[in-house]
């Protein structure tokens, strides 16, 4: 679970190392990555909106 989140975060940032990539492609389930991606995208939107609301005060 933590490994999946770490990989998705790395994808958000745009940098992933070769070792983790191999591991993800051998062990991970695609559904887990898609779900984590959607969930973290929602988190990103909420965080950006919160920052914008605080900054606009």
């Amino acid at each position, binding site marked *: 679970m933590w490994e999946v989140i770490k990989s998705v975060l790395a994808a958000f*940032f*745009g*940098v992933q*190392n*070769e070792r983790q990539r191999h591991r993800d492609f051998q062990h991970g389930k695609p559904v887990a990555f898609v779900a984590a991606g959607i969930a973290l995208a929602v988190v990103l939107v909420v965080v950006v909106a919160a920052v914008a609301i605080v*900054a*606009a005060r």
Partner: protein
Amino acid sequence: MRKSLAWMMGAGSFLGLASSTLANGWNMPVGVTDVSREIYSLHMTIFWICVVIGIVVFGVMFYSLFRYRRSRGAKSANFHENTSVEVVWTAIPLLILVGMALPATATLKRMYDPSEAELDVMVTGQQWRWHYEYLGEDVSFTSSLSTPRSQVNGEEEKDENYLLDVDEPLVLPVGRKVRFLMTSDDVIHSWWVPDLAVKQDSIPGFVNENWVRIEEPGIYRGQCAELCGKDHAFMPIVVRAVEADEFDTWLAERQEAAAAEASGVDREWGMDELMERGEQVYGSICATCHQPDGSGAEPTFPALAGNEALLNDLDRHIDVVLNGVSGTPMAAYRGNLNPVELAAVITYERNAWGNESGDAVQPSEIQALLE
């Protein structure tokens, strides 16, 4: 040593050239408002950030190309990834972008805050002129190009403000916050005056807001910045910024003149004064399409000189000028011109350039039709 000195001199003369070029009118103007200065300094900050990044990136690249060339026995490295380098070169641009976005957003917020304005001006784009209305002050007028056609056609030398001159500039007070409400009667135009850092689309059916607080009296020129048809280049903007008390005097004079014009509706007008007034209105409003000599530009803009259909039907003529012709570029002028101007221009069109209808249309007749 000598080499690096030459490099430094080269770089120095490049920077010197760059800044003198910037001062010579190639750069955007600093402008005469708080916001315009903020925009200018943002622009310069971002420009210099780009220059530094460019120098660093291309410097590293050219140095590497030169220092590690094959003729000196360089062997290419063969590795796939380096996570820490990748993290660094992703994080640095992210920080630079956020660093640029913060001041830019602060300025944008200021630009889009037209609250607490002391004067509201409705700006309406029309093909191809601007109409200004000082809301709640009973003053409104149309501002048309005043550069003579002879200069456009090359029969006369072009003057300094070629295509940047109007018959009636927009007069604004210095030191007061003025809110603009921008809209359009026909197609999308854009009201752009670089020195005021205002560039706002005027869109039919929408009212866009913008504002300005001018700090120095002066003449500021601009242009329509949204391609709007045949005479897009012929609808300049001139803003005359004056001291606040001078503005108040001007506004009072305009209000008096408007009141006098309104009272002119009730009296009987003579042919000569109608023709005189009509020629003025025709030159400022109608001549761009129907031509100063009434010859038009077929097929889009019909000739008015010798137009029998028009001359034989006064009611139709009045209807066309007041209400426009749908499906053609002919706009409705009932809202733009007052009854005196409408009566005068119709009279003029019926009696100029060899048209001899003899009709003198009275402002009171038009007034009755407008009600």
